[in-house]
């Protein structure tokens, strides 16, 4: 091995791809160029918004509306004019950013804000065998993780915690947390009252609610009278009825609710005065609707958004915001307001008031308007410092990955650390409260999850013309004849393309017969095209792998070289070995070494099976567990599936 390079030399000689030029991206790009990186491409779909400017410091007010990636590049070039930065204003999921594109980089750095794009980049990196440094921040919390195929878990090896949704029974009948009250208000009561859809059937429509028409405005009823009627039903009648179901409260852990006082008891000035506040009153409710132009809080003089309201004030805001929403919907031509929107001030007031009153029912801590808005809208305020720390950590992990990669030689594959050497990579968590007097917690990376559906399966690449290859030919010639499969089934990412007849309904058999006659490009759910990953399985052979389709147009085929009009090859470690499709079955040492570190159990198992299948191409075979070692047990060739 050559004498060790300095970090700066390493940075200088590496080419990196940044995905995302937002909060983390700005910090990351700055730290990259100041650490010596010179060859950087970045992709971001977004344009600059005024609300970004407080922390995305590469942008100024004059840049609002422009591409984040392009402006970030220009700003950085001002202090590092020698850097070679390419900015793409586009979506990383576009087909132009395919596996071949990703393969041209030494490492990919993610600073993305949504799960879908992060999963997509994970898969691109796995297919291209380029290491990925993944990151994220939420307020004070952040994390940076390194993902190197075969060495650490991929981004999807372990399920991501998803925000909990709240079961309807808890929300409707037995809330015990402030969030339950907020979600009840925003997701159940709000759409039930204000949605214009006459067919909406809500889980609030129990027998008694239907009998009382509890949620339907009577003809001629003023908005505030309707609001008071709903108040009395939701916070009094319904609670009393729930209390009467004694089975529900048999469990002592369930705290019994208390009905609120009647509206007129709680609010002595009465509904009309409460609804209008200082907005002025003139005679009957309907005519004065058009004067209800401000928010309920303004009209009622409740100026502090951080204060918790009294029951009486909450009841006033409930009726007032309710009446204002009804009045607004009426003047809009009764289209209704189908969904809660955190930017709709009246909707936020209604939700905050409902949540406060419900908290009073159930003895739950009461939240302010500001907090209720944040909870209902899922708002977490970004913290610039967290982004800066995370940006720095990404560069630290990137340098480690690059050093390993260089040490692995120029084969281009994922570098192999010395066997048994401690893994140099870390998952680092940025915390809000210190533990062990630390705010940064580095951890050993997780190992690959053998049953991960994303990185755990074997991969085979099929090069063909998707405009002429039919599914039927793929099944008969490629899967059955070439790969010796017995009863193959084929799934596309979004749909099932082919299953064995056994136990199918007639309509399904008919559909699959139709699919077989179709070209790959014309199959349902968008067709099978360049870079589509099919999942092929054979239950009778306990055999499953990913078949990645690479499109090569018909006129690019040479009949003599490839008389079949298609080529099958292993998703091999290096681009170079793909050059030579006339496979000879020999394995070069570098690739062998590379595969050594790959988690052997699942991958080798499956790939051995592929080889075994190849060995008996053209004949159906019965698999038994013993023929695993028919290639002399050398794992070296596991990554090199060569199929003639």
């Amino acid at each position, binding site marked *: 091995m050559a004498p060790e390079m300095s970090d700066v030399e390493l940075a200088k000689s590496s080419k990196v791809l940044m995905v995302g030029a937002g909060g983390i991206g700005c910090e990351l790009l700055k730290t990259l160029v100041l650490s010596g990186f010179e060859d950087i491409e970045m992709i971001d779909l977004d344009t600059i918004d005024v609300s970004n400017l407080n922390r995305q410091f590469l942008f100024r007010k004059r840049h609002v509306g422009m591409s984040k990636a392009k402006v970030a590049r220009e700003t950085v070039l001002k202090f590092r004019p020698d850097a070679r930065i390419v900015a793409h204003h586009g979506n990383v999921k576009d087909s132009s950013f395919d596996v071949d594109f990703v393969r041209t980089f030494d490492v990919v750095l993610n600073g993305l804000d949504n799960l879908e794009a992060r999963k997509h980049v994970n898969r691109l990196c796995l297919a291209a065998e380029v290491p990925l440094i993944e990151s994220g921040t939420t307020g004070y919390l952040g994390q940076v993780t390194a993902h190197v195929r075969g060495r650490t878990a991929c981004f999807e090896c372990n399920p991501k915690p998803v925000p909990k*949704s709240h079961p309807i029974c808890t929300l409707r009948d037995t809330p015990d947390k402030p969030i339950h009250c907020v979600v009840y208000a925003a997701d159940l009561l709000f759409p039930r009252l204000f949605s214009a859809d006459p067919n909406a059937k809500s889980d609030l429509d129990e027998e008694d609610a239907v009998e009382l028409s509890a949620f339907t405005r009577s003809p001629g009823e003023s908005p505030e009278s309707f609001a008071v009627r709903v108040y009395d039903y939701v916070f009094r009648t319904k609670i009393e009825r729930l209390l009467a179901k004694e089975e529900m409260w048999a469990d002592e852990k369930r705290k019994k609710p208390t009905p609120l006082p009647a509206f007129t008891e709680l609010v002595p000035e009465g509904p009309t005065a409460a609804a209008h506040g200082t907005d002025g009153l003139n005679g009957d409710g309907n005519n004065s609707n058009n004067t209800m132009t401000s928010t309920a809080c303004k009209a009622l003089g409740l100026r502090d958004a951080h204060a918790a309201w009294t029951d009486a004030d909450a009841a006033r805001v409930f009726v007032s915001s309710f009446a204002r929403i009804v009045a607004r919907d009426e003047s809009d031509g009764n289209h209704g307001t189908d969904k809660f929107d955190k930017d709709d001030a009246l909707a936020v007031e209604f939700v905050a008031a409902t949540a406060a009153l419900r908290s009073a029912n159930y003895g739950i801590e009461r939240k302010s308007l500001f907090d209720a808005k944040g909870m209902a809208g899922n708002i977490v305020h970004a913290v610039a410092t967290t982004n800066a720390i995370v940006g720095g950590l990404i560069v630290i992990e990137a340098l480690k990955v690059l050093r390993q990669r260089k040490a692995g030689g120029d084969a281009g594959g994922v570098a192999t650390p010395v066997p048994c050497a401690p893994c140099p990579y870390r998952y680092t968590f940025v915390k809000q409260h210190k533990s062990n007097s630390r705010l940064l917690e580095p951890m050993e990376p997780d190992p690959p999850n053998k049953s991960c559906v994303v990185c755990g399966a074997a991969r085979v690449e099929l090069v063909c013309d998707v405009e002429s290859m039919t599914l039927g030919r793929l099944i008969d010639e490629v899967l059955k004849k070439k790969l010796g499969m017995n009863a193959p089934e084929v799934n596309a990412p979004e749909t099932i393309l082919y299953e064995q007849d056994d136990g199918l309904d007639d309509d399904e058999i008919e559909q699959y017969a139709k699919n077989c006659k179709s070209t790959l490009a014309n199959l*349902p759910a968008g067709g099978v095209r360049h870079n589509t990953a099919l999942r092929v399985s054979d239950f009778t052979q306990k055999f499953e792998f990913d078949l990645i389709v690479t499109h090569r147009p018909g006129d690019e085929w040479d009949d003599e070289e490839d008389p079949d009009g298609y080529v099958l090859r292993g998703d091999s470690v290096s681009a170079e070995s793909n050059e030579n499709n006339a496979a000879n079955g020999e394995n070069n040492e570098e690739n062998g070494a590379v595969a050594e570190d790959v988690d052997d159990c699942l991958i080798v198992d499956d790939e051995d099976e592929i080889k075994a299948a190849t060995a008996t191409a053209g004949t159906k075979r019965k698999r038994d567990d013993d023929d695993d070692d028919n290639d002399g047990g050398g794992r070296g060739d596991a990554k090199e599936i060569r199929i003639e």
Partner: protein
Amino acid sequence: MSSLAKTRLQTERKGWRKDHPHGFVAKPRTARDGSVDLLNWDCKIPGKAGTLWEKGLYPIRLEFTEDYPSKPPKVSFPAGFFHPNVYPSGKVCLSILNEDKGWKPSITVKQILVGVQELLDNPNNADAAQEAAYKLFKKSGAEYAKRVRIEAAKYTEAPAGFVAGGGATGAEDDVIVL
């Protein structure tokens, strides 16, 4: 590449085809373009023999999201289905379908459907989801039984009908609510 949810649902489909309890139907919908809608399954659950629900074949819809299997599917009968633990919209209230209680990502489609079959004859009034069935169940066993038989009769069809899609009862059309 396929999402985790869809990959898992493809596996569920395979598992179901390989082995499923007698009389049950579970099938992802087919869209007009011939693609399979893996996130929406139409299923049928037979009432258990020897119970008030026997002879009926009850349509159930499973709606999965991209967060499956971290999150359970939404499981619903037709809107207005008579049962103490079925919400007015038809949604089923069952602990194994509740993220805070019994849901685990390892629960299969088969276990869900068997669980719902079990629930039919074992209502739980401590978690009542609708007033009508709750009240009747509490008031009188005989009246409740009579009302359940009426409900079951709505979903009784000739055995030949339930293999292909053609044998749908009128009630099935009501499934699409929410």
